[in-house]
């Protein structure tokens, strides 16, 4: 029941926010309250979860369309519980940011954000392919509107590009879902066996590759991340991208072991190419959002390398890094939003010198940036090392690519930090430009504290992601 409650709470909150005739602050505040309650509910779920036991937990199954073998089946494994946890925390921060920044038409806006929260949690919890598809699609509708209505100047083009890409992915996935259900005789993930059909696998894989996005399916990314309201960009890169990782881990790998094995070289090569390509573009991006956006592309490549290493270290590392990247990317996007609000621009050439007299902004950006570039000792370093070690089993070249990524990450992240904080103040930075306000700090600090806590103990996530801490066996036996 707890899982269902985690899905229903934000959706009910969305209806409530949309229906109640509250003031601007009232509806935003109510939405924030619901988002915080959702975090609390997740904490209860995590406390009830038995990480040692393994298997699906907190599950609920109801027949939906019996004749077609469609069911409402939800529940969590270790890794999906962690992904959902990162999601609800990031959503709380994003909704809080929207409350702070004050969005137009707040009832519609916050109803959509809460609905999106519910859809994301449902995606992470789904144990039926058709339900997964429905939840996956349900995320898109609020995203289209959030970018299309509340975005920047070129929001329409951004939305349309996003729509075209994601619809293409959705169609492929719908075909794959139907074909999978028909051939298996059921849509239930628990009830179905494995399939060796390469085409169905490809349908899923391409849909996930677009959603993550993976190189070269990322055409929608630069526009969407630049034009979306900054907290929506944060949600897109931090959380929505991770639904693709969940799809790889829950469906593409365990249900299609043979096609995944055959095509893993292609995916690994694309992921490695994306890691280098994204890092290089981040290094040359002229604006703050560009750097964070392309670094996300690079990070998704890295995580995919870990997934398709199909190795204990790689899989655990991929889950850990997914949680890390969710928190890092959300922190960075929100900080970028705070800088943009002060200076009216995210153009690197117009910024600079903000460290002097703004110690809180400097400290928080520095800490988040250092974790983003995976300074040794950080939880991102732990994730990266596991992925590097895991993917070495697929060939030393992949490990070398990860090593190149470490150096490039240092280059583009230091560029971002210095462009904002160091040397002379740029034309957009005035003497009276404020330091972070307590309200803003209260939004970013929890994310950074989570990251520091994970840095002290990354094993919390990495050793509890798969039953028995045995990822490869779990994929083959329990999830397959």
């Amino acid at each position: 029941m707890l899982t269902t409650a985690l899905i229903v709470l934000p959706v009910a909150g969305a209806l409530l926010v949309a229906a109640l005739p509250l003031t601007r602050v009232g509806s935003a505040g109510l939405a924030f309250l619901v988002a915080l309650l959702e975090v609390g509910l997740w904490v209860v779920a995590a406390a009830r979860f038995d990480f040692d036991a393994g298997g699906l937990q907190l599950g609920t199954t109801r027949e939906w369309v019996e004749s077609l073998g469609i069911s409402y089946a939800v529940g969590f494994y270790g890794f999906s519980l962690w992904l959902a946890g990162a999601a609800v925390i990031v959503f709380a921060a994003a909704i809080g940011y929207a409350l702070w920044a004050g969005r137009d038409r707040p009832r519609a806006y916050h109803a959509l954000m809460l609905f999106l929260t519910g859809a994301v949690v449902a995606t992470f919890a789904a144990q039926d392919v058709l339900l997964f598809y429905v939840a996956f699609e349900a995320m898109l509708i609020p995203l289209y509107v959030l970018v299309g209505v509340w975005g920047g100047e070129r929001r329409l083009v951004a939305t349309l590009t996003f729509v075209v890409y994601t619809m293409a992915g959705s169609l492929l996935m719908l075909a794959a879902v139907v074909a999978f259900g028909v051939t298996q005789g059921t849509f239930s993930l628990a009830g179905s066996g494995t399939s060796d059909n390469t085409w169905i696998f490809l349908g899923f894989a391409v849909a996930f590759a677009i959603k993550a996005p993976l190189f070269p399916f990322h055409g929608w990314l630069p526009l969407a991340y630049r034009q979306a309201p900054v907290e929506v960009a944060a949600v897109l890169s931090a959380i929505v991208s991770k639904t693709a990782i969940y799809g790889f881990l829950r469906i593409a790998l365990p249900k299609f072991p043979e096609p995944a094995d055959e095509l893993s070289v292609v995916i690994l090569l694309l992921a490695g190419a994306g890691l280098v390509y994204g890092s290089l573009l981040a290094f040359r991006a002229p604006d703050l959002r560009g750097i964070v956006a392309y670094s996300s592309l690079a990070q998704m490549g890295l995580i995919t390398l870990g997934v398709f290493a199909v190795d204990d270290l790689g899989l655990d590392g991929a889950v850990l890094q997914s949680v890390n990247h969710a928190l890092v990317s959300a922190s960075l996007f929100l900080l970028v939003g705070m800088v943009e609000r002060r200076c009216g621009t995210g153009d690197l050439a117009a910024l600079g010198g903000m460290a002097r007299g703004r110690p809180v902004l400097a400290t928080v950006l520095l800490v988040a940036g250092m974790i983003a570039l995976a300074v040794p000792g950080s939880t991102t370093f732990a994730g990266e090392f596991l992925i590097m070690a895991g993917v070495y089993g697929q060939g030393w070249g992949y490990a070398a690519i990860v090593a190149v990524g470490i150096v490039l990450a240092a280059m583009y992240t230091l560029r971002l930090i210095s462009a904002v904080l160091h040397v002379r103040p740029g034309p957009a930075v005035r003497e009276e430009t404020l330091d972070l306000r307590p309200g803003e700090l209260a939004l970013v600090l929890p994310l950074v504290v989570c990251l520091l806590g994970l840095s002290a103990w990354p094993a919390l996530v990495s050793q509890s992601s798969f039953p028995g801490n045995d990822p490869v066996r779990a994929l083959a036996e329990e999830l397959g």
Partner: protein
Amino acid sequence: MVAGAWFCLLAPLAGALAITLAGERISRRQAGLVSTLTTFAAFGGALVAFVAMWAREGAEREQLSTAYTWLAAGDFEVGLQILVDPLSAVMMLVVSGVGGLIVWYSLGYMAGDDEERRYFAYMSLFVFSMLLLVEAGNLLLLLVGWGLVGLASYLLIGFWHHRPEAVAAAKKAFVMNAIGDATFALGLVLLVWQARTLELPAVLEEADGLSGTIVTLVALGLLGGALAKSAQLPLHTWLPDAMEGPTPVSALIHAATMVTAGVYLLVRAHPIFEAAPDVQHLAAGLGAATLLLAGLVALVQWDIKRVIAYSTMSQIGYMFLAAGIGAYGFAIFHLVTHAFFKALLFLAAGVVIHHLAGEQDIRRMGGLRAALPRTHVAFLVGTAALVGLPPLAGFWSKDAILASALASGGALGWTLFSAGLLGALLTGAYAFRLYYAVFHGAPPEVSPEPHGPEAAHEPAHGEGPLSMLVPVGALTVLSTLGGLLSVPGVWHPFTHWVSETAEALVEPSTGEDYLTSLVAVTLGLAGLWLARRAFASGRQLVTSPVAWRALEHKLYFDELYDALFYRPAAALAGALRREVEEPVVERSLDELGAGTLELGGGVARVQSGLLRTYALAVALAVFVLVLVFVAVR
């Protein structure tokens, strides 16, 4: 023993946290006191560990202590653990002891700077990270300390972040070290696959069982990290630029401790390097090359701190040479004495810089003997110790390294021995060139506008407050007497202690020792004589203009790397953006989107655009579905 080591590790961390969290609730001076006291508390912990170890025997002296499992995946586990053994005990003492003196000195040196609290928080973070590096009980945790000292170094080089030079230097240091971190991590990945553990000393015992190729690659990976951290060829270019940081930072991080971490790694992981002798010899060769190159470049530098920085590179070259031929005890011995006399030189230079209101150009110095008599003595002791004149610290440690090279014999041994002797001549020349330029001759006319990172300082007449004088005095004493811990033919308590962790591969005979000393001291004095003669006649040591220009450009390494790596990478990234990302990836759908928009028309553009796309999508979906069904059947 273990408790002392844990206390030693955690005290500076507590200091850094306390200063950061207290913010403006404590005064600048209190922040400095917290940092100083916690560092000395760490020294106390190290002493306790050392004394407890002293009382034990043999295998009892080595203990691994695990707090908890930091990282786990599958059957692979990494603990937050420390290894307390003779080698780490020595390093703990040096890091916290010299560190405490330098942080104390900073109290006086940084007084009046805008952001003293930030400075002391960073310093404490550094001391913690360095202690983590030397105490780490597994190689991954060692890499964590390795990376965190790099972070602290980045923060402190760029401490005056309004200066573009400081920011550029900090970034350069970080990226160069990231290259080293990356090869280090690759080496560890190989070890994980072979041994399934990174725990010390267990993982080192696996080295013998590894295949030749694997162990060579592992050793190369570790060596890459060591070269970057210790500023050895070919990853050395960041260290001179790092002098943009405050002078006590240069003393602590870029002379006494962090930059010698590469030597520590070579000694700590010696079984791996011994299993890959080619890589070990490569380390020795690169050390020899670096000591010569840095010695030459030091001859033509004008910045007081850069001369000392090049001498640091050169001296670490000696340590790499020693570690590369298996003279582990002497490598660590030189590491320790170098920490004393190089910290002394930097701190004395700091007094000079303060006195001259931030001036660092030695052409605008001279005759300071009269104004700074005590600093003059300290600097002279540091210089003589650096050159290796008896009976000062550097004499005992450097000559022992050269004698080991002689003892190891063969073509390699002789080459290294000759390079080391030539280095001794160069050291005498550049070190006394600096000494004469600063303390002798006529005082220059007072420069109206001092240049350099510390130019904002008020001129401090006299030799500074007690907090600066006492550390300088203590280091003067250590630089004078520190070498007596190992006297050839008399006693070797120091090397004997270290050999419990790393048994030396070569042992010079007493005869070789005395012969080497005779030649090396003669060459050092010859360098002194050259410097003195050049100074007296007002000429430079390098007279050929071509050679001068090449050395002034540091033999064009920066330009070479710029052309080889940075510019191609930047050009590739720019080309990808212009040729691939914008026209192909971004614009392709731009046009499609714009077309759809036009179809929609008017205010309802979004909606109709969406609807049309959906309609199109549904039609497509049906089509694909049919295709799939056909394919599946």
